[in-house]
């Protein structure tokens, strides 16, 4: 018995396993169950569903980017192809083609998974033989190719119009007619949970670990008896499958798929989601997906220039925080637990203040410019201030905020260097 206890010394304890692995999922499930009890609005549901889909999509992307080291510019292809297959399946369910009549719409994400995985298996075979920039370029080429080809094969892609379906057909499962938005919630929540759990479990499998090993050092993987191309290929199929799962969720949620779903735009967005969230952490893309979806649907109501803020955020993350939001959050937690937490918090707070000041400067500049450029005579009026482009106060505020923010950041940087 002593033998066993020695090797188990390295494995996490039962308590650690519970707090690090089981507990987060229990909390997630509890949150998902609790949300409808708060009586959310239609708007809330609309955004929450989009978040659920994006969370799964972004996590699937991170299977290849963060865990596999493959930068893809065409991940939406698998989302789209999985989604298309699911929409077609929705049609087959409606028409009761073959055995489809006996399959509930609730399980369409599985069809999406199969579609995405098949597409991954087909396209991944030539493209995963290479990694790095070559892979990135192939993914771009394939994405453009399939997007362009989508307009030629109308029977599958439906041309400009896309393919529509009706989710209120087939067998009802769990008493869900899937019609009203509040019923769709359970569908999205269920599959989001399954998707997160599935992809997390994947990281714990031998293949999941080998994927990380291949990312770190493909050459060495060969000398522990594995073919890195095969590892990449298999991981790619799974990533395609989970992207397809998200596509299947989207198919049921929106009841339509158009060729644009395969284009570079969603592929770029999922890249930004994963990267901004933090690709080195499993939860990173979840943060990113939630933040981006929020920006996409809520921030876009407040400002026309939300994509500009997104671009600034993305570049700032690439330049100053390559571990993303998750890196910032976990870094902060480690920092306040660390031995010099006092200094750490001070630096952190000053930095935050600096960033906020710069952000204020940026917001003033952008919002005033947007309205000036539109020429509708609209004026930016935060907190009752009347900031037009002719008002000196506008430019004064912009200058003060920006300069103070930059100065503060530089000051903190100097201080950090001095203490280090």
């Amino acid at each position, binding site marked *: 018995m002593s*033998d*066993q206890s*020695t*090797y*188990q*010394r*390295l*494995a996490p304890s039962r308590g650690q396993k519970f707090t690090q692995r089981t507990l987060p999922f229990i909390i997630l499930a509890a949150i998902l169950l609790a949300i409808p009890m708060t009586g959310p609005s239609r708007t809330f549901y609309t955004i929450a569903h989009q978040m659920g889909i994006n969370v799964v999509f972004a996590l699937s992307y991170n299977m290849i980017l963060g865990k596999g080291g493959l930068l893809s510019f065409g991940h939406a292809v698998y989302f789209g192809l999985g989604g298309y297959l699911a929409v077609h399946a929705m049609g087959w369910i409606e028409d009761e083609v073959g055995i489809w009549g006996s399959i509930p719409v609730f399980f369409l994400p599985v069809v999406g998974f199969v579609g995405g995985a098949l597409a991954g298996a087909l396209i991944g075979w030539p493209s995963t033989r290479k990694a790095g920039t070559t892979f990135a370029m192939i993914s771009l080429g394939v994405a453009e190719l399939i997007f362009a080809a989508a307009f030629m094969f109308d029977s599958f892609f439906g041309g400009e119009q896309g393919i529509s379906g009706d989710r209120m057909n087939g067998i009802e499962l769990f008493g869900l007619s899937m019609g009203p938005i509040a019923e769709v919630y359970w569908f999205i929540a269920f599959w989001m949970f399954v998707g997160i759990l599935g992809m997390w*479990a*994947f990281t*714990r*499998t*031998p*293949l*999941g*670990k*080998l994927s*990380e*090993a291949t*990312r*770190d*050092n493909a*050459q*060495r*993987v*060969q*000398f*522990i*008896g*594995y*073919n*890195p191309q*095969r*590892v990449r290929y*298999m991981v790619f199929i*799974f990533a395609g499958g989970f992207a397809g799962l998200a596509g299947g969720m989207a198919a049921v949620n929106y009841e339509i798929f158009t060729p644009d779903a395969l284009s570079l735009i969603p592929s770029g967005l999922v890249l930004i989601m994963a990267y901004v969230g933090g690709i*080195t952490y499993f939860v990173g893309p979840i943060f990113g997906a939630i933040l981006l979806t929020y920006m996409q649907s809520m921030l876009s109501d407040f400002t026309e220039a939300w994509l500009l803020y997104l671009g600034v955020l993305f570049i700032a993350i690439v330049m100053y925080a390559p571990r993303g939001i998750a890196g910032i959050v976990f870094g902060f937690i480690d920092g306040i637990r660390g031995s010099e937490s006092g200094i750490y918090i001070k630096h952190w707070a000053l930095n935050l203040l600096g960033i906020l000041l710069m952000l204020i400067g940026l917001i003033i500049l952008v919002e005033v410019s947007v309205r000036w450029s539109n020429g509708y005579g609209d004026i930016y009026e935060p907190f009752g201030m009347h900031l037009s482009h002719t008002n000196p106060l506008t430019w004064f505020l912009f200058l003060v905020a920006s300069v103070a923010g930059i100065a503060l950041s530089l000051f903190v940087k100097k201080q950090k260097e001095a203490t280090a």
Partner: protein
Amino acid sequence: MSTYALSLSGLNKSFGPAQIINDVNLDIEKGERHAIIGPNGAGKSTLFNLISGLYTPTSGSVKLHGEEISGVPPHIINQKGLSRSFQVSNIFTNMTVRENVRCGVLNAMGQGYAWWRNIGSNKAVQERTFEILERCGLVDKAPLPASLLPYADQRALEIAITIAGGADVVLLDEPTAGMSHSETDRAVQLIRTATEGKTLIIVEHDMGVIFDLADRISVLVYGEIIATDTPQNIRGNEKVREAYLGDEALPEEVV
């Protein structure tokens, strides 16, 4: 015909006009500890790359336990029981030490490319990982990211990954390069225990290590093996002395 653990015959490798390996013939018995020495640029690493499958020979053959392996991809050669280390640390930098070793263990434990099992629930894998870590003195460092290890420990991890798969033919490429004296002693001890009962082929510059470990030594100069013999005989070999003249005055220092 008795099968050698490793047998090279008429091996040639050229890159364009440059002939790097020139008609190398070498047979290594099972269980033998064989060292390859030679001046810088002699082609030692290229030889390793040819044996381990990273390069395909221009001509000639490489046999592992009598089976032809030239032109076979590295991972297949590894599965057939040949493992190698690298001159510069070649580890999985963003994973922990334990995960590094565990990856090395997977294939031998029949895990294949499994995606349906929890890596943590396989007892045999955990035991084996622990055993390797313990043998390489890395147990205390197990939860650290490999990139944060001190240099000597990275070298130890390099060896740990190499032997983790349980290959019976082990190629070590300068395992003690850049180590201090005490670290080197520890490494030699590690190599000795870790390769117990295995066939070992080692490239080293530290002659102390070589003469301490090796049963036989081959001397590689300009891509050719000029001598293969026991350490004693190598020490007295005129051709070897000539080749090393002005490079590293080896035998005297060692004696």
